[in-house]
């Protein structure tokens, strides 16, 4: 049995005018660290809210650990932990009071499951008498994670837990998730950051309410059908406009100091391409074959859709 199942789920807002989730089906296995990857407005939060029984789907069925999200919502509410995308703790309560409140609310105590949150809580313990509203962004997320975990949920739903958090805290946060996974908790996490996708066991790429691909990050990257090149020159802006006007180029996107391109003709010669670009007046042209990342896969899938 899968820990989480979505079966042809559709959700619209404003009486059907806005399509948020479009016929989504996927499964998350027991004990898996599953990522829902997509830009803002892709429908990630809507899917989370359907799974956490906060929203009713228009069509389709969803279940968590075998319990139907509509009929058995009370059962599900006893079994899951949920960390909403927006910081949702009481800003005027202290760290300790928040944790204590949520532990009691879910019928548990801090002591009972302290082992589970120990690693995370130790980091915010020095501030346990500070009001939650006065914590830094990373601290807030750690506290929110503690509050979502304190009752030892079977499935943990984390909606964009690292949005607005600095790079170091993000890394720490993902280390914690891996640690939790080892304890047998199924984790469903969403993120708009592509670099975090590779940290999940399996991911679903989602865009405009539709799932584009579900697989392990490695497989998704390996499924990239053509060769991918990274190219740079002195004037990167001109290079990009020139590349977009060249007939042999299939796609071109700026990635930091490089531009990632694919070619229409799989067998095309790189040297010819380099010559063509140099003829257009570009200097220090550098082209190399690279391995596609999740972001490349995402953009390619997005353009095909």
């Amino acid at each position, binding site marked *: 049995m899968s820990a989480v199942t979505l079966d042809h789920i559709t959700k619209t807002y404003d009486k059907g005018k806005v399509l948020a989730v479009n016929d989504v089906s996927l499964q998350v296995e027991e004990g898996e660290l599953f990522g829902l990857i997509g830009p803002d407005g892709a429908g990630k939060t809507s899917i989370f809210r359907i799974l956490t029984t906060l929203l009713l789907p228009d069509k389709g069925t969803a279940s968590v650990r075998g319990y139907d999200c509509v009929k058995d919502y009370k059962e599900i509410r006893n079994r899951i932990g949920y960390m909403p995308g927006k910081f949702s703790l009481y800003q005027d309560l202290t760290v300790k009071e928040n944790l204590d409140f949520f532990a*009691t609310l879910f019928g548990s105590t801090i002591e009972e499951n302290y082992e589970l949150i120990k690693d995370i809580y130790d980091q915010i313990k020095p501030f346990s008498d500070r009001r939650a509203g006065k914590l830094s962004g990373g601290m807030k997320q750690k506290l929110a994670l503690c509050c979502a975990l304190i009752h030892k949920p079977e499935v943990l739903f984390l909606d964009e837990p690292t949005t607005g958090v600095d790079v170091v805290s993000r890394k720490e946060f993902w280390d914690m998730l891996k640690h939790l996974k080892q304890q047998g908790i199924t984790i469903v996490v969403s993120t708009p950051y592509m670099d975090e996708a590779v940290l999940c066991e399996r991911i679903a790429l989602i865009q405009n309410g539709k799932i584009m691909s579900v697989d392990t990050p490695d497989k998704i990257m390996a499924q990239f059908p053509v060769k991918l090149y990274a190219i740079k020159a002195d004037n990167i802006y001109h290079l990009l406009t020139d590349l977009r006007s060249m007939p042999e180029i299939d796609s071109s996107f700026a990635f930091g100091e490089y531009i990632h391109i694919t070619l229409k003709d799989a067998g095309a010669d790189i040297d010819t391409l380099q010559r063509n670009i140099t003829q257009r007046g570009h200097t220090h042209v550098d082209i190399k074959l690279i391995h596609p990342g999740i972001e490349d896969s995402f953009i390619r899938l997005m353009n095909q859709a």
Partner: protein
Amino acid sequence: MKQLLVFIRKEFFHVFRDKRTLLIMFGLPVAQIVLFGFALTSEVKDITLTVIDNSRDANSQQLIRKIKSSSYFIVNESSIDYNDIANSFKKGTTKCALIFPAGFGNDLQHGGKAQLQIITDGSDPNTAKTVVNYITAITTAYQQEISPSPQLPYTIVPESRMLYNEEGNGSLNFIPGVMALVLMIVCTALTSVSVVREKELGTMEILLVSPFKPLMVLIAKAIPYLILSLANFVLILLLAVFVLDVGIKGSILLLFMESMLFIITCLSFGLMISNTTNSQQTALLLSMMGLMLPTMIFTGFMFPIENMPKIFQLISNIIPSRWYFLIIKSVMLKGLGFEYVWKETLVLLGMTIILLTIALKNFKTRLS
């Protein structure tokens, strides 16, 4: 059960850590009571009275002394010209002028009839009427004094009494009214914000996902405010008794129970607003601005409901504070027992049940 207690404790934390809530909760009632008690009084006192005595005889002087000895007037015996009176009214230096014509005493002694002119500022008709009544009463008393044997064969002397408030203390009517007004506004406003705040901050999402029952959320929200409102009620009562000299004639226990019922009515109303709105601002606007005026007008302590057009009288029936006002007026001022207020109590009870049902029906177990 432990969950409920922890939830209630959390609500208390919210109240005590938010200075604004505390200010609304306890500052507003004190300010209102003091304001209404001292500033808003219908009594007329210390009116500046300009006297122009063109007669200057024994009778006119005696009458002026009588007026002086009453506590209502500050008599200003000026020698200003009759023509200047209009000016001093315009400037506002005088509210009332009393003019004795030349030969006042002579007319009275020998003609048996003398005239006296009273001029008042009609731009404030209530005060003007009161002033005329005061002077007429003093004049009549003086007239009887100087002609002890009435020539009339039949006389009717009306002996009036103001029951429950013999000395005509103006705060007496205001206190129950202000109590009704303050409790209504404060209880409704604070509870209306309490649930919406959770929605706005996003904590409602987690509360809903928890196994905690929605009904318990409402109970946990209502109990702290019930306790605080009762404390508030005691505070208002203490202020009324010790600062404004309003005695409590009836049973304090009955007063307390009736107030508790009224507070629950208001809490239910607040919860209903809270469950049907989506932002603290809307909730506060609805409960404070939206309620303030109707409560003030339709409670009946400022303007008598009996004088309103029929349609407004009907509307006043749905304002809970109107019924509470009737109850505490009866219990506090008249000292009546439950047998005289059971009808009003029943109306409040009915309202509470209806409001609570609507509040519960509208509590969403999911996000809308």
